[in-house]
């Protein structure tokens, strides 16, 4: 039986008993509640969660229930801060509900203008809270589907160009902070235009799909691959040094070239040219520079006769 994932929920409520009641309810209803007792603590928890979810979106906080009046940072201020930070880094959507003793229209408008999705006045009816949380789940699901759609290449089901480049950018920024290294590969199907012209675009699409599957199956669990465009793919390898990147490139190349690809036009011999590089010893290198060097390496691979891999080092300035 499939395990139902619990939605991670942040509670910020300075009254200990009220927060305890909320926590009991949320846990009973199947949410995974984290309780904080002031706005500053809630903000720290939110920031830390953001840092820890990199590449693991299932760990993200998805709902925040914020008391309006709290010490340090109040609910309104906290709401604005969460929205601003989420906007800055294009993060997963967090649904914010304000708990308020205020029920005057101008105050409710103030709360919603600060970025809250919903509010509930205290003392609240727990059945009402439950229904509002169900609504929150529905909105989160819709947001997630949109996000997934934008992040996925329709044909190959790999990450989209934007998504893979965004991931690379995040990895290189993390590298700057934590001293980790990143490998990048650009792969291109040899003579793909000829395949399309000879067998038609439908066969071309079949080739693309099967190449995508084989490449993905040849990667480590935490490596990511996207369709860069046309018949080109970009892969990002966290914690991958100079020694490893060449063997990874060869593994990917052989995963395509060593066995024909079955299509409706028959069994076709397909090969890849691969270019790559690695950020080892260059912690401040940008993602754009890594792509540029990988692309140059790919051109070299083509010039060498295709169906091979070239890794270029980063030249020190």
């Amino acid at each position, binding site marked *: 039986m499939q395990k139902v994932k619990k939605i991670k929920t942040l509670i910020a409520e300075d009254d200990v*008993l*009220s927060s305890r009641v909320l926590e009991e*309810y949320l846990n009973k209803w199947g949410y995974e509640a984290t309780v904080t007792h002031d706005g500053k603590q809630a903000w720290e928890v939110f920031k830390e969660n953001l840092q820890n979810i990199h590449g693991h979106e299932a760990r993200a906080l998805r709902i925040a229930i914020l008391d309006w009046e709290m010490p340090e940072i109040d609910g309104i201020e906290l709401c604005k801060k969460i929205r601003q930070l989420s906007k800055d880094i294009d993060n997963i959507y967090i649904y914010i509900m304000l708990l308020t*003793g205020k029920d005057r229209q101008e105050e409710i408008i103030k709360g919603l203008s600060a970025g809250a999705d919903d509010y509930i006045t205290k*003392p609240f009816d727990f*059945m009402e809270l439950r229904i509002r949380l169900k609504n929150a789940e529905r909105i989160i699901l819709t947001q997630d589907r949109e996000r997934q759609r934008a992040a996925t290449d329709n044909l190959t089901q790999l990450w989209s160009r934007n998504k893979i480049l965004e991931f690379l950018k995040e990895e290189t920024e993390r590298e700057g902070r934590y001293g980790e290294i990143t490998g990048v590969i650009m792969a291109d199907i040899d003579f793909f235009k000829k395949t399309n012209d000879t067998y038609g675009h439908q066969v071309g699409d079949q080739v693309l799909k099967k190449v995508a599957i084989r490449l993905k199956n040849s990667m480590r669990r935490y490596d990511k691959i996207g369709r860069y465009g046309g018949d080109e793919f970009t892969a990002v390898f966290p914690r991958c040094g100079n020694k490893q990147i060449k063997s990874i490139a060869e593994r990917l190349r052989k995963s395509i070239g060593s066995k024909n690809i079955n299509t409706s036009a028959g069994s076709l011999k397909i090969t890849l040219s691969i270019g790559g590089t690695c950020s080892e010893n260059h912690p401040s290198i940008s993602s754009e520079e890594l792509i540029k060097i990988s692309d140059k390496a790919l051109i070299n691979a083509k010039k060498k006769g295709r169906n091979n891999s070239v890794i270029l080092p980063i030249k020190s300035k």
Partner: protein
Amino acid sequence: MKPIDIKQVKERIGLNKKIFLKLINMFREEFPHKLKALKASIDENDFNKIQEIGHHIKGSSANLCLPYLQIESSRMETAGQEKDIQKAQKAYQNLNKEFEHFNNLTYS
């Protein structure tokens, strides 16, 4: 009205008995500390603190369907907002009284 509105508890809250008793006991243990802090705030004419504590007790007592405590703590909160020390002192006496009634009940 009784110190605890059992009908509302069943209708509005719906927590199981074990959890509800746990929360009631928590409230019972915490409340004297809140009263002590209120007394100190009233003695010092600290209206911000009076309002804040009144607000908290109002929330907790409402969550647990304790109508009398909710009413008196709401009066305390208002006393803090209006900076009315006599109102705060009256609300304090009533809170003490209502808490005693509540405390004398046994829950099973």
